[in-house]
């Protein structure tokens, strides 16, 4: 390849072009920037802009020759049906609870891998905890269905032990939903927490413990503050993941705990002129979840500057 490029330099126009690139970093940069800028506009910005626009339409696709009238009707529909509002509120409460639960469950795991285990074994244990996350959400939900179903592994085990005479209802309710969601979210909490905890100097912890600090004090006064960045990142990632969950709640959750993303999907795929309504719901979901994240980050970042 190099030989070919060296040969190509005998060819005048090519040499002029490549010399121009060497001489003018600006030209080089401009050429490199074309494709990325185009992509950012087409893939990252335009679809969202179009979605926001469609959410103000009365119907879509428009009848030919008609100019679109902008309306707030789609947004009103959201506030008129209690079904939508309760699912919406439930989603955000559930997301907040799931985020807190994930933090509580994963923090000791991240602490154990990054602070207790000897350095050369850390990566192996981390990989062990990460490996299941290369698998599809659907396959993982399926695995939990097999665990929790009435004739599934857990119930069979309980009945074999004689702990229960007939199957316990584990599937299609909040239990199965929570177990499944935790299974999805742990990675997004584990990696930022691990990265943050790993950076903490062990000597700080030793010093505190030499000075007689209790374990809880060390946790509260040293480890928590120094890993704040990781905690914030993890919580934000998990929260956004849960608010957008679509498939897992349909497989593991019951009819009474539908999350808002499923409703958005249903509304959007419904026959008829449902794109504007689906768009409006998406805009609401996106706006509120990003607002939550912004408030959350503002709260905790300001605390850091005070300290």
């Amino acid at each position, binding site marked *: 390849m190099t030989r070919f*490029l060296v040969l190509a330099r005998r060819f005048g126009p090519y040499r002029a072009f490549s010399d121009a690139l060497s001489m003018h970093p600006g030209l080089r940069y401009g050429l490199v920037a074309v494709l990325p800028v185009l992509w950012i506009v087409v893939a990252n910005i335009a679809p969202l802009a179009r979605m926001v626009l469609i959410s103000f339409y009365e119907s879509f696709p428009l009848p030919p020759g008609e100019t679109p009238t902008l309306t707030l009707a789609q947004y009103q529909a959201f506030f008129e049906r209690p079904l939508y509002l309760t699912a919406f509120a439930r989603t955000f409460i559930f997301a907040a609870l799931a985020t807190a639960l994930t933090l509580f469950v994963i923090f000791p795991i991240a602490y154990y891998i990054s602070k207790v285990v000897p350095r050369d074994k850390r990566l192996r244990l981390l990989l062990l905890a990460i490996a299941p996350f290369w698998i599809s959400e659907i396959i993982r939900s399926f695995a939990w269905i097999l665990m929790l179903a009435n004739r599934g592994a857990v119930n069979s085990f309980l009945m074999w032990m004689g702990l229960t005479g007939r199957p316990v209802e584990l599937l299609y309710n909040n239990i199965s939903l929570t177990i499944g969601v935790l299974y999805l979210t742990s990675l997004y909490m584990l990696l930022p927490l691990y990265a943050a905890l790993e950076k903490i100097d062990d000597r700080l912890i030793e010093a505190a413990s030499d000075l007689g600090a209790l374990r809880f004090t060390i946790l509260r006064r040293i480890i928590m503050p120094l890993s704040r960045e990781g905690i914030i990142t993890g919580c934000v990632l998990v929260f956004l993941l849960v608010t957008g969950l679509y498939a897992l709640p349909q497989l593991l959750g019951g009819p009474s705990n539908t999350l808002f993303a499923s409703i958005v999907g249903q509304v959007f795929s419904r026959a008829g002129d449902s794109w504007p309504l689906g768009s409006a719901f998406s805009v609401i979901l996106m706006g509120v979840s990003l607002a939550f994240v912004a408030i959350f980050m503002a709260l905790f970042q300001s605390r850091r500057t005070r300290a």
Partner: protein
Amino acid sequence: MKTLGRLTLPVYFWLFVAYLFLPLLVMAAVGFRDSNFVAFPIQAWTTRWYQSVVFERDIMSSIWVSVKVALGATALSLIIGIPMAFFVAGLRGFRRAAMIAVIMLPAFLPVIVAAISLRMFIGVLGLQTGIGAIIFGHAVSTIPFVVVMILTRLGAMSPNLADAARDLGADEFIVFLRVTLPFLMPAIFGGAVFSMLLSFEDFVRSFFLGGFEPTFPVLLFSKLRFGFDPGLAAISTMVLVASIVIGLYAERFSRRRQLGNSSKIVALDQR
């Protein structure tokens, strides 16, 4: 008391590992059950599910669709992601932060929002729902990760390397091919495998952007809504093992390359 305290964390950790792996092991075991129904304990064992599922046309064709989509999305995200990393690397200060925010945006949107906005947009690009649209949708979601991985590696590269090559008479193309690209290779490889796995396991985007040919997760989802049999457990197990093996291999490879390469580069730098 002290030993008890010392034991709590390891025990808790291994319980967590059991929580992660037990369902997967149960699923693998169900695939060996000699019956048309799923129940426990498994008394009669058979390998027929693992054998026969390979001949089920709809499952195999959905896996083939998934593979095509994953390869296409990976290629596209490298073609766009590599220049995008260079583009961001050339920015400073506020512009850089703002550009990174815009690039990362698709990774932070609720997945359903991303899928729906793309579904309504593909018509503008002249795409129909189908493999092409899914590839586009997956690339949108994987490019942020590719860019971040390459950008991190790019930040570790000394500008002296490229300058030295230029002083020795290399033109820009040779510098890119012989100096920059080899240095970035671990990050590119890591980003590629990450994109591939992310694309292969995606459900929501494939579901909304797909046409009549479902990807494997979409097919599995629609089958699971009507029930399940040991055959589904068998094929899921096989896909799962393949994903984990590829993921672990890629992780190892890119880490080894990274260590090897950077030490060499450091040695070169100091000379």
